[in-house]
């Protein structure tokens, strides 16, 4: 069949290799040059970790890092709870107005960051009259994270076999018991994936944060963005490398737990079926 294929595998393979090189080359360059001794330029002048040790004494960067984690944790927690409830409502219950909710969630998903940023700054400053602070940043992050959680959890629940709930009910489970022992364990990987997505998106946000952050609530992306106005510097390379590595670690942890949650979900169903 391969000789008959409209797209020949040999060329496709070459194309794939080139696209992967395109995707990873800039990241690799950045990481490599974060270990460059020279202060400026891109000629290699020897291996050094001085830019990393200088970061340890950079209070602004450390404070920005703490702010970023705080915002991402709190926003993810709220967005995951709110978004999961919405996803359950939209997949497991039939009622009028469902598509209106779906549309609202879809709009928040496609709204450009710049538009959400200005609308929130207008809301906080001119309508609600609150001072911009880390709280307004968290509120803004919850707003754009909810839709991502809903979409991911919904995808998991749509693929869900409702006969399992029927079976639980036939075996005498109350709707609440069935929810707790059957639906929730099966949905867990989706909820976890949604939370991970919300967390990474929150970690990365520049535009909306820049419109909602006040004095003292600078996040790491905002700090990096501000530093870039003064031009490229090796300590930004080092900081970027740390951020890249943290998201890789996060991805690995996420992958590990979602596989485990998937197994545990299946286990819970076995237990329910047997019990």
């Amino acid at each position, binding site marked *: 069949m391969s000789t*008959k294929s409209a797209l020949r595998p040999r060329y496709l393979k070459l194309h794939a290799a080139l696209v992967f090189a395109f995707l990873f080359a800039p990241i690799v360059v950045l990481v490599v040059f974060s270990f460059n001794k020279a202060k400026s330029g891109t000629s290699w002048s020897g291996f050094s970790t001085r830019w990393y040790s200088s970061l340890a004494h950079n209070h602004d960067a450390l404070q920005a890092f703490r702010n970023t984690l705080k915002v991402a944790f709190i926003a993810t927690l709220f967005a995951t709870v709110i978004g999961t409830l919405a996803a359950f409502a939209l997949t497991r219950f039939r009622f009028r107005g469902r598509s209106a909710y779906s549309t609202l969630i879809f709009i928040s998903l496609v709204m*450009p960051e710049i538009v959400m940023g200005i609308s929130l700054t207008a809301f906080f400053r*001119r309508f609600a009259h609150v001072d911009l602070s880390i709280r307004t940043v968290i509120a803004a992050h919850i707003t754009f994270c909810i839709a991502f959680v809903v979409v991911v959890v919904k995808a998991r629940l749509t693929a869900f076999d409702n006969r399992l709930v029927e079976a639980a*009910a036939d075996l005498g489970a109350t709707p609440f018991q069935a929810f707790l022992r059957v639906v929730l364990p099966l949905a867990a990987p989706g909820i976890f994936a949604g939370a991970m997505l919300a967390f990474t998106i929150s970690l990365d946000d520049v535009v909306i944060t820049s419109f909602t952050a006040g004095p003292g609530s600078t996040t790491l992306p905002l700090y*990096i963005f501000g530093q870039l106005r003064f031009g490229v510097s090796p300590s930004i390379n080092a900081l*970027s490398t740390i951020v890249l590595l943290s998201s890789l670690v996060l991805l690995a942890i996420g992958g590990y737990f979602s596989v485990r949650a998937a197994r545990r979900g299946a286990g819970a169903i076995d237990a329910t079926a047997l019990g």
Partner: protein
Amino acid sequence: MDEGQDGLSEIEVEARPPPPPRRRRLPDWITGNLLLLPTSVWFLFLLVIPTLLVVAYSLGQRGVITPVRFSWGHLNFSNYNLALNPLFLPIFTRSIAYALVSTIACVLLGFPLAYWIARFGGRFRNVYLVLVIIPFLTSYLIRMYAWQFILQRNGLLNSVLGAIGLGNDHTFLNTHFAVILGLTYGFLPFMILPLYASIERMDKSLVEASYDLGHGKTSTLFRVIIPTVSPGLIAGILLVFIPAVGDFVTPELLGGVKTQMFGNTVYDQFGSGNNWPLGSAMSVLLMMLILLGVFVYLWRVGEEAL
């Protein structure tokens, strides 16, 4: 049937034998709306009211003491005139052009890759997928910064070109090329992932059948494969075009005055330009453009895609 007061779903109705008597359950519309209550309240205050505020601002006037002054009684569309006048219109068309070219580049780069992973990935398929997901989940800002590092005047690309005797003083930043490259690079994974999902689901005997019925390679690609994977293709196009057209980070880091896009201009109006009504009008125009795209998507793919 959608809101059966007895709370039975369609599957329950079909079940045989009749279900055993069960405890009283709240009707679906009550439970559903209760579960959606936090979302509704949150979105009312932090999405709907702020958006309406921007629409209202777009009809106001630039104030001296407050950013926006309203003259109630007559609607003021002057900001829209200003947003579409010859000073700002090029920014509009440039943003759309950049986003379109990047979207096309993403299709050309992403489609063959997605096809290869789905059909010829073999047992390493998941590894290749993770290789697409890693850039998808790593910081967009940092990935754009990496390009700035490579493309700047004393950057890596000029050093490499100089070393092989092609001159080391080329200008790459602040060009159309740099911004389109950045947007393509930034949003390529958004194209590959939905395309992959569609191609993976495609029945490969369709391709066989097309050959057996005498179609050539090109004909099979355009008349069988692309129509079959069109939901993924359309989703990918929207997932690239929508964030690209409103992007702020890429033109800011890789572009300059000549390559200003929507995002930068709106940002400036809420910052140094200090013209909130004009920035709001531009945002409303941008939102209308995007909603147009979304409606086309819903009309083509259907509402269940939500």
